[in-house]
């Protein structure tokens, strides 16, 4: 389904509901999973939403038939991540939620995301954040691309779609690369790509009328055993809060702190 023209774009943007990094974050004692009580839309996914909105706005927006579907997989409250995306301008939402999903790893999450995206029919572009701020693995976008048989353009610091071709620039330390693929494709974006907008009053009102489809695993033809803790391909054996770094020595400069700093380095054999 290559798009040789510049007709309407159908975009899916992945949004994850994660514990707010502003607060102390915890792992639950028995299951070693992340405590999600103070959660928000992952701030790194705001860049993906913004990228999607800019792409459709350049093509006449929703009026011209372009769509941005915000998709999340997560517990009941995760729908808030989708709602935030709708307030920002996404056109509709999908929330996959199921008891059996608790404890999923990247393989399980990507399995469910892939099934949910397939259920939407042909899409042109899947946009994701560069990493979730809780899992921090960056595994999901690549695993999803593999499952859907899509070209991946990951860690995009810029993004263009023209004539059915997607072009991105990525910075990888010593090198800057330009990468290109035919649509459909999966793109993960970094925080260098744009400045995410804030929801405005109009957007908040408009969002109330937008549809969010709630799906269970059975709606996607998936078996509970394929996901969650049972279906995971990895397990966490133990978790320990990092001990506060041993009481460090803090000095106030009295004109010789540079020398004292070097004494400290010498005492730790770091010179």
């Amino acid at each position, binding site marked *: 389904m290559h798009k040789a023209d510049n007709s309407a774009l159908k975009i899916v943007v992945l949004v994850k509901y994660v514990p707010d990094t502003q607060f102390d974050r915890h792992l639950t004692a028995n299951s070693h999973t992340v405590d999600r009580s103070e959660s928000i839309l992952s701030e790194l996914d705001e860049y993906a939403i913004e990228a999607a909105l800019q792409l459709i706005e350049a093509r006449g927006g929703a009026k011209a038939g372009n769509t941005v579907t915000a998709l999340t997989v997560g517990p009941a409250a995760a729908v808030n991540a989708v709602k935030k995306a709708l307030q920002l301008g996404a056109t509709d939402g999908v929330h996959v939620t199921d008891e059996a999903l608790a404890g999923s790893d990247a393989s399980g999450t990507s399995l469910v995301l892939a099934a949910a995206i397939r259920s939407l029919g042909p899409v042109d572009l899947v946009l994701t954040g560069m990493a979730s701020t809780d899992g921090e693995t960056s595994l999901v976008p690549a695993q999803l691309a*593999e499952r859907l048989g899509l070209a991946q353009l990951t860690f995009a610091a810029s993004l263009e779609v023209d004539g059915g071709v997607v072009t991105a620039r990525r910075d990888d330390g010593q090198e800057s690369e330009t990468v290109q693929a035919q649509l459909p494709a999966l793109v993960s974006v970094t925080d260098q790509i744009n400045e995410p907008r804030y929801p405005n009053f109009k957007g908040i009102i408009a969002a109330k009328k937008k549809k969010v489809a709630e799906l269970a695993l059975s709606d996607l033809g998936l078996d509970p055993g394929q996901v969650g803790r049972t279906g995971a391909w990895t397990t966490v054996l133990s978790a320990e809060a990092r001990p506060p770094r041993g009481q460090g020595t803090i000095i106030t400069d009295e004109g010789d702190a540079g020398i004292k700093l070097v004494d400290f380095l010498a005492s730790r054999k770091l010179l």
Partner: protein
Amino acid sequence: MAGTAKILVFIDSPDGPLHKVQRELLTLAGTLGEPAAAVSSPPDEALLAELAGYGAATVYQPAAQLEDSLVAPNAAFLANVVREAAPAAVLLENSYEGKETAARLGIKLSSGVVTDAIAVAPDLSVTKSVLAGAYTVVAKVTTGTPLITVKANSIEAAAGTGTGMPVVVEVDPGEPGPAARVTERSAKPASGRPDLGEARVVVAGGRGVNGDFGPIEELADALGGAVGASRAATDAGWIDHSAQVGQTGKTVSPQLYISAGISGAIQQKAGMQTAQVIVAVNKDADSPVFEIADFGVVGDLFQVLPQAAGEIRKRKG
């Protein structure tokens, strides 16, 4: 010598001698079993000899050149290598490409992936830190061949007593499927300093340098270290984005991290909290960075850093 199971190390785009991280991966493989290497392009004699030195008895290379595309060709090739070599585990670099190669390989082989390893035990359980360094967890792959991406500086690279050239085995590169082509590459100007991700010493500057990275570079050079930065400094355009340390920049775990004029926001800590020793220089005694510093100086970086650099040069003669 540990068990005799093969531990496969992925060596991506070899271009001359092995990189430091690659030597570390091979060393780690030697502590877990018998190292073997999968190289994404045919190794020359010198590289084979170097691999032999690290105990790699077998080297797998693609039977035809891999496409210059992102990740997918590496994953397709490696999947065939794993089928051929049946290793007990695969070790890869913890770079973007390393993690993503592991990710796609994981789906191809129905194998679990653990990223950001700082240690791997003989039973292949992996130690890593999560939630921006707030927790240390031990994780394990329970399905398939463990695919583990290992952070730089997790182990001291040490060539073993390997003898004899490795056996080179050609492996079908497989079918990568749709992939993004690399249409242009532009190398960034070389700084002459060690690579930020691999360096043993990192000296990083933040908004407090106020546009002048001179004192940061001077101290980095005195210590033979790399230069890092906070996002405030890279966003201001004072230094290239590739120097950014943190959640959306590089994750580094050097032996020594010197933070100067950086407040220590959670996103900055996410990238440096696993450093072995942290030194902070900041004017503000209430800066959160002091909570994680082993040694802190409340003072002006424009005074403290040049003085320290001068003292180091003096002591080193």
